[in-house]
């Protein structure tokens, strides 16, 4: 039985002081419901990591009631920065299991607390007993991978820096993006060091935002939408939360496993993908993500970006949204943004960089590559 996305919605990403969790979720969620003519969902799945920053858990019931669906089954799914993709995976499974209409909302409100508090909580995605106890920030953990990768494959600072330049070039044209400004390579590679070798422009911003996708079973999808986008595969995979017990520090094995499984389920190869949204929490994450998706050999992605690959007009075009770097990273919402953005590309109504695409992919990564969901969509 096929599953389709029949409605999407999203808020602008940013430091949205005037909007709470419920405001953000309602803005995105109800936009998606409006797209299907206000047909009520049979269940709501919420992707979120840190609603505790707003002193608010129990998001399923809270949002079902606030959005006007009191009584409907609803709950939150958490997989660190991969919570949005995980919520998509659960929503998709519910439709495969027999529900006809499921609303998936990803929502995050990171600026409710002072930045040091938010930064500390984000590091909770690491292993508390064997990593966090020594004091690494989340950027620090990614910096460990970035140094190893650059050293092992002889990747230059300029080559790594080209990732941010491409993301900002794309995000500049996305009206939903958090940081809508172009940057040049010199700005990136001379920006302040956060966790050597990660500099400010290697890192995504701390963002608020919400996105939603309305999933429907096949018959229902054709009734509710003239432009259903088919979910060809949703594949989740995990790795150790700690980076220490992994065989390799130069790749994200859960991302590789998730992508392979998604391609197999969809019956396609990496070369069939026209547009992809990959998870670039840091430039190293983006580079490893591109390689995990099979768009570049291990050790090659940063060099290819530096040579001009993956820009608009190339196949695949990567992160026309601007990625986490420029669109922003409202962590538990990001995976839902990515799927909604790819859906809009396939429908031809994304309001930023537009890609003429038949097949799209979204890759959402939680932790330092420990919980990954890859989704394949087709027009």
């Amino acid at each position, binding site marked *: 039985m096929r599953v389709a996305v029949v409605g999407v919605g999203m808020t602008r990403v940013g430091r949205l002081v005037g909007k709470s969790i419920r405001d953000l979720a309602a803005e995105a969620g109800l936009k998606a419901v409006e797209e299907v003519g206000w047909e009520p969902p049979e269940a709501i799945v919420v992707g979120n990591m840190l609603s505790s920053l707003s002193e608010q858990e129990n998001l399923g019931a809270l949002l079902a009631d606030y959005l006007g669906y009191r009584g409907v089954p609803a709950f939150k799914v958490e997989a660190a920065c991969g919570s949005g993709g995980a919520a998509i995976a659960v929503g998709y499974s519910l439709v495969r299991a027999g529900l006809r209409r499921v609303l998936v909302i990803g929502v995050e409100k990171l600026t409710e607390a002072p930045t040091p508090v938010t930064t500390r909580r984000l590091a909770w995605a690491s292993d508390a007993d064997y990593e966090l106890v*020594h004091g690494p920030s989340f950027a620090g953990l990614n910096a*460990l991978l970035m140094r190893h990768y650059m*050293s092992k494959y002889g990747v230059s600072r300029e080559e790594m820096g080209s990732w941010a330049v491409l993301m900002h070039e794309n995000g500049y044209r996305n009206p939903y993006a958090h940081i809508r400004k172009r940057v040049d390579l010199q700005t990136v590679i001379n920006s302040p060091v956060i966790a050597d070798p990660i500099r400010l422009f290697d890192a995504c911003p701390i963002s608020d935002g919400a996105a939603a996708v309305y999933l429907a079973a096949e018959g229902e999808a054709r009734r509710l939408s003239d432009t259903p986008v088919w979910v060809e595969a949703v594949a989740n995979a995990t790795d150790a939360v700690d980076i*220490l*017990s992994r065989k390799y520090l130069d790749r994200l094995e859960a991302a590789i496993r998730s992508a392979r499984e998604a391609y197999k389920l969809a019956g396609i190869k990496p070369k069939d993908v026209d547009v992809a949204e990959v998870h670039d929490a840091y430039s190293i994450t983006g580079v490893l993500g591109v390689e995990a998706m099979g768009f570049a050999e291990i050790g090659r992605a940063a060099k290819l970006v530096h040579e001009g690959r993956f820009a608009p007009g190339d196949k695949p075009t990567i992160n026309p949204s601007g990625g986490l770097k420029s669109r922003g990273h409202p962590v538990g919402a990001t995976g839902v943004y990515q799927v909604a953005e790819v859906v809009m590309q396939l429908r031809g109504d994304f309001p930023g960089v537009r890609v003429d695409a038949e097949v799209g992919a979204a890759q959402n990564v939680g932790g330092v590559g420990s919980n990954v969901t890859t989704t394949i969509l087709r027009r």
Partner: protein
Amino acid sequence: MTSVQRLWRRSREYLSLKAFRCRRCGEVIYPPKRACPYCGSRDLVEITLPRKGRIITYTVINVPIEGFSKPTIIAVAELGGAKVMAQVVEGAEHLVEDAEVEVVLGKVGRTVEGLEYYMPAFRVVSGKDLKEGDTD
């Protein structure tokens, strides 16, 4: 930030650098798990990791998380086939990839209760501008 009870609970294994070896595939397993992540076997034997090894990768964190000082220097070193994370508390100026380190006890941060605590940490023994035997 960690808590006093977490440190109390794990103090013995932290201090002894406890790990496991898989009796079936021979791999060293660190941090400890309930099965071998490489072959799936539950036939594991507890081991103690050696206290000397080499740096695989490291980072100097200028924006540390609450409870830790600026900069916080974190390294991953290979100790007897395991990758172990710890702070670099001595000889950081000699830190390079492949530098030799030994495990010492270092004051690393503060608990949620505000107490300073010690953990196994790295001292750089030989690396940039430093050969083994140069220090005591």
